């Protein structure tokens, strides 16, 4: 069967069903758990590739679950932005699963694999959903699964950060649901397309919008609601940190963008866009400075995520096609690069039992692939050419300059400089010769090479910018200036 004969309406739901089936099998038959999980993540990645081919040929796809009228049934929808989320989930999900197989080989956790697959299913379901209540359910799946993964190693630190994370996630989804309740009682439907046709200016709509967006901002750790992120992301085991930073916070940021572009677009509230952009700019500066001040590698990477999320908030006010393409590219490059960095940090921690930046010089000789991968991934975070991060930041800068928003451009440039500063702080320590540490646990070749693969992908994504941008912009109607 050739790829063109496949139908998006069959492929997209499989991205939710397959991981859930895999999770159930992995939970019941524990001996097969690792094999089943690896196969499932590989299958999901292949499904995304097939779906991308279909969508790029046939355009966006709309699937109504159950075939009932859209007014009350749940719709799924695939367009370029959905594909972006599905693609990073497929790629990062697969490589991190490979990594986790070796990382957890000494300390097996019986339920890790099923929760991991359910988390991937939740992200896919969230990306596909076109129904604001269904999105709430997927958000709860995602929140609980993330917290369950954080506590796959149990100590005081992971438990306290997990509790903080869980409460932040629950409050976030409750605020979101409160907003959904207002929208439903006002417009009588939950479907995003129907809502966006019906939506009008008014206090109820604004209240709903404020509630939904602020709830999602807590979950996406947008400054100043990021208080739970550094602890949760740095205390979790490395593969989990990678997934949380690369995918989970991005899923909520994706929703903010999705709701903004598709649901609230007829409103165009410039005040709100300015506010989001301002918050983003503070996040860029504050997150970068905090990252610079950290003495532990994983905390540094976690704060860097707070800063990088600030860039994603810049599209709202620039609101041009270039700006949104920049946002898409930053999301892509951050997912690949940040997961590589967390995996590298995991290798270092695994090897030396410690992730203090001052002690890094002791591991460089022993972990050359890991450190090279870290350096390569850093290029994307700093925005150096020819990495994908460079393309994203370049597009955003270009958009800011065309709009004449010099201040925004300056802040983004400063963010880049600060990023170089905290990256060189790490790399500088790593490349000073020092005495070699004792190996605590072996870092397997798979662990090094998965890290390298993700880092290389973050660079390679910079080489095919035109093709990728075309794919991830399918059926996206980026609005003009807000």
């Amino acid at each position, binding site marked *: 069967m050739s790829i063109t004969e496949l139908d998006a309406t069959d492929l997209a739901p499989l991205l939710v069903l397959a991981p859930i089936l895999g999770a159930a099998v992995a939970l019941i038959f524990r001996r097969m758990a690792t094999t089943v999980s690896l196969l499932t993540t590989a299958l999901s990645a292949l499904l995304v590739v097939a779906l991308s081919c279909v969508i790029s040929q046939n355009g966006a796809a709309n699937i109504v679950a159950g075939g009932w009228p859209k007014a009350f049934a749940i719709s799924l929808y695939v367009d370029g932005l959905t594909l972006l989320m599905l693609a990073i989930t497929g790629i990062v999900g697969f490589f991190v699963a490979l990594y986790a197989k070796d990382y957890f080989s000494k300390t097996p956790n019986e339920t890790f694999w099923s929760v991991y697959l359910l988390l991937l299913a939740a992200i896919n379901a969230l990306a596909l959903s076109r129904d604001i209540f269904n999105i709430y359910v997927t958000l709860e799946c995602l929140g609980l699964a993330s917290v369950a993964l954080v506590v796959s190693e149990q100590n005081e630190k992971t438990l306290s950060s997990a509790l903080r994370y*869980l409460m932040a996630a629950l409050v976030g989804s409750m605020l979101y*649901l409160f907003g959904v309740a207002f929208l439903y009682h006002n417009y009588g439907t939950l479907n995003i397309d129907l809502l966006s046709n019906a939506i009008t200016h008014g206090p109820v709509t604004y209240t709903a919008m404020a509630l939904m967006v602020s709830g999602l901002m807590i979950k996406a750790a947008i400054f100043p609601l990021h208080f739970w992120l550094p602890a949760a992301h740095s205390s979790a085991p490395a593969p989990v940190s990678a997934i949380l930073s690369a995918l989970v916070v991005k899923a909520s940021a994706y929703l903010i963008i999705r709701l903004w572009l598709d649901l609230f677009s007829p409103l165009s509230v410039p005040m709100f866009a300015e506010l989001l952009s301002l918050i983003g700019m503070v996040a860029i500066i504050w997150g970068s400075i905090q990252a610079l001040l950290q003495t532990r590698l994983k905390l540094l990477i976690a704060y860097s995520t707070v800063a990088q999320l600030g860039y994603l908030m810049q599209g709202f006010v620039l609101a041009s096609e270039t700006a949104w393409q920049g946002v898409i590219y930053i999301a892509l490059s951050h997912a690949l690069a940040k997961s590589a960095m967390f995996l590298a940090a995991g290798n270092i921690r695994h090897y030396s039992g410690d992730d203090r930046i001052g002690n890094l010089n002791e591991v460089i000789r022993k972990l050359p692939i890991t450190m090279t991968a870290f350096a390569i991934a850093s290029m994307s975070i700093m925005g150096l050419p020819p990495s994908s991060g460079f393309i994203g930041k370049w597009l955003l800068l270009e958009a800011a300059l065309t709009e004449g928003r010099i201040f925004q451009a300056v802040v983004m440039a400063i963010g880049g400089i600060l990023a170089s500063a905290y990256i060189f702080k790490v790399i500088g320590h790593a490349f000073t010769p020092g005495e070699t540490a004792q190996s605590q646990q072996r870092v397997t070749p798979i662990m090094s090479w998965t890290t390298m693969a993700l880092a290389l992908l973050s660079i390679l994504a910079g080489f095919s910018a035109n093709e990728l941008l075309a794919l991830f912009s399918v059926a996206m109607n980026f609005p003009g200036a807000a």
Partner: protein
Amino acid sequence: MSSTQFFAFVGVALVCIAMHSLIARAHLLRKILAINIMSSGVFLFLVALAWREQTDLPPDPICHAMVLTGIVVAVSATAFALGLLIKFNTLTGATQLNDAQQ
């Protein structure tokens, strides 16, 4: 104020009371209960307005279904939060999060 609007307002009030408790109280059990009450408030708001008095139609089943779904989700979340709290308490003996720690 009709009775449905009254119940919806009670739901809103519950959300705000719970939010206060969440902000002002440090004990984790109180925080978890606050989140539980907050979700009850949202559900009450959602289901109270399912019936619009000025029509002959039955109450909206979608609201009921949403609330049923929400209740199950809230139960799961509460159970998981309580499990975490018990484990946290057995490991550390503490009942609140230390704000200074990272």
